[in-house]
């Protein structure tokens, strides 16, 4: 009865087909498609900048404060550097590479793949998941203590935290990653906790408990895989917030250290010279805004589409 009459619904889907299905979901939503395009655009530009930029991004090869023209498509900054080249190279530190300090135990002084925003979000996902799972699944005192700590962390205005952390530890890619991790973790933990509170009422968790499984097994093997979906959508939003935060830090002059160009810092420099060159503030501002908006649109569209799909 089983095999012979199985309807198409129950047929095996290969991994590839399932991926195809996911991709189709993205393109079903116009919002998600537009968002994805915006994000991919910057990734593409970043990858290109690894091998080629129109001019040297960190050298004053031109006159200062040039308007956009045929040589420098986006003009030059107050030090006579090509803005387009700097803009392209600026994607690297956010999305593509993280520079380790010289005295770092492994790979000191080298850059590792994955931008500061991505590592920061990865950090907050890891920390937040562990805290959220423990608070949600164990409940009782664990929950009280973890939530109290998180409440304190949430109450701490993020910008103050950034300012103090960076004042304390100095500028650097790793410091920014740490700051993003710490400020992002409470949000992730709350989300994970609420998802866990829901999942833990399911009978399969009872089944695991009646098998006498350990708490860690239940949290990481039984619960975690089932909250992947919402967590993924959320982390997409978080990459957006992280870029937002990196931009803000750069703008405040305490962001990613030189020599690599940093968009927030470019905006800040251009702002100081806004009366000499109004055009220099626009490209980096738009870059940050479109990348963050793109990520938001993508996550939003995806979430909406997944919800609709589940209905």
């Amino acid at each position: 009865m089983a095999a012979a009459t199985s309807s198409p619904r129950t047929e095996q889907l290969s991994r590839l087909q399932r991926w195809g299905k996911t991709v189709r979901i993205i393109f079903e939503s116009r919002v998600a498609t537009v968002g994805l395009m915006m994000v991919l655009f910057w990734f593409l530009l970043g990858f290109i900048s690894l091998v080629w930029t129109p001019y040297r991004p960190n050298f004053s090869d031109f006159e200062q404060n040039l308007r956009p023209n045929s040589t420098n498509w986006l003009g030059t900054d107050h030090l006579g550097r090509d803005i387009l080249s700097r803009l392209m190279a600026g994607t690297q530190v956010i999305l593509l590479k993280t520079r380790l300090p010289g005295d770092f135990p492994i790979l000191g002084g080298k850059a590792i793949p994955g931008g500061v925003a991505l590592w920061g979000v990865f950090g907050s996902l890891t920390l937040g998941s562990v805290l959220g799972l423990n608070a949600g699944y164990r409940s009782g005192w664990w929950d009280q203590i973890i939530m109290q700590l998180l409440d304190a962390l949430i109450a701490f205005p993020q910008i103050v935290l950034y300012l103090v952390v960076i004042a304390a530890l100095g500028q650097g890619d790793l410091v920014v990653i740490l700051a993003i991790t710490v400020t992002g973790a409470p949000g992730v933990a709350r989300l994970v906790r609420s998802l866990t509170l829901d999942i833990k009422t399911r009978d399969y968790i009872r089944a695991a408990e009646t098998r006498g499984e350990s708490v860690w097994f239940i949290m990481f093997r039984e619960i975690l895989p089932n909250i992947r979906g919402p967590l993924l959508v959320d982390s997409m939003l978080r990459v957006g917030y992280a870029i937002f935060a990196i931009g803000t830090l750069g703008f405040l002059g305490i962001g990613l250290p030189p020599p690599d160009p940093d968009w927030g810092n470019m905006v800040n420099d251009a702002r100081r010279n806004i009366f000499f060159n109004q055009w220099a503030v626009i490209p980096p501002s738009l870059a940050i805004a479109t990348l963050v908006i793109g990520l938001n649109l993508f996550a939003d569209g995806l979430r909406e589409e997944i919800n609709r799909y589940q209905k």
Partner: protein
Amino acid sequence: MARFLVRSVISTIVTMLLVSIALFGLIEVGSGDITVKILGIESTAEQRASYRAQLGLDQSAALRYIGWLVGNDWLVRGRVGHKLVTVKNPQTGEDQWWADVDGQLTRWRMRSGELYALLRQENGSSVEVLANDGWQLDPETGTEFFWGVNDNNSAVKWVRGAGERVWVRTSAGFRQQGDGPQQYIPLRKGILRGDPGLALQTGRPVAVTLIPRIRNTAVLAGVAFIVVMPLALVLGILAGVNEGKPLDRVISVGGLAATATPEFVTGIFLILVLGIWLKEIWPGSPFKAVALFTSPDAIFRDPTLLLLPVLTLTAVELGYVARMTRASMVEVMDSAYIRTAIIKGMPYRRVVLRHAIRNALMAPITIIMLHVNWLVGGVVVVEVIFGYPGLGKYIYDSAIFGDFNAIEAAAMVTVFIAVVTRLIGDLAYTLLNPRLRYT
């Protein structure tokens, strides 16, 4: 309900304590040598060490934290042997510390190896008398010492015949003096008793500078709040009841774009468009690309200074609140009881106004309240862009300088705002939600 309230209040207090400890610890680890910043890099190691001692930085961190939190006069009292009190300085209005020696307010000073007592008179001046009979014998070392209050609001220990060479910061500059104390404990009442200490950058009490700053920020955030809230709730509700229609799309995507754009980008664009380009077409436009805040009260004399900062904050917050309200409204309009109301034949307006809105506003109110500390972040950036003399700019400047007293105080204000608004949000939620109210 009582349980809930008590828990919220306790949690709020614990939160603030935890935050203050964390903040203190972070600054402790990271602030580096503050004396370099105060005295300049050309200062000598000896000068810095002397000044560190005067700031009380040679005490343990725990002692300094306690002093910061609840004051240290009660700890020091045993050493001085008299009650320590504060009196307002009639000229500056700042607090001065005195020892209350049997009703006579007294300070001490050492000059040429001799100990003098300064007796405060009714009119605020003081009379100097020789007080060498105050020396006490240290049985272990055989030296004579004295604990008293000096004229710089510290409890200090002098040793007879061993006046330290100390570097003193005066209005005229930094100079060396003899007859200095061996040990300093700067006296303070602690933040819980309303004394956040002295700003290291200016040497003035933090409380004095902070209050106008808080007021300015309150004006900025308040105006923004009054503009944002009604508008955002209306837009959110409109979008929510028109889910999926063009109006909803416009509000949702517009809101998302406004929220996802960092404040500094929004601010710069507004400066560019309204402050510069508009000015070229319309010279009389009230928007100012560069606003000079000549005094802390400037905004009251020229309210147009507020225009661009408020607009920037509004742009960022409007989208967020509208989207929250929309999501909540969509959920409520999808619920079974709204279905009931429609099937009961209620007119659509009544369904929305009587049945939906109240339930739909519950979620955003808590979320908005939780969002306040995010708003504080926005305020910092907006104030930095426009040079607005508010709390955010104060935090930024203090953090860049490493002025721990100032950061601590200002940060505690923001944390206090954050936790209290959350408490209010919780309360509002309980009041709106009969299921919580009647249990």
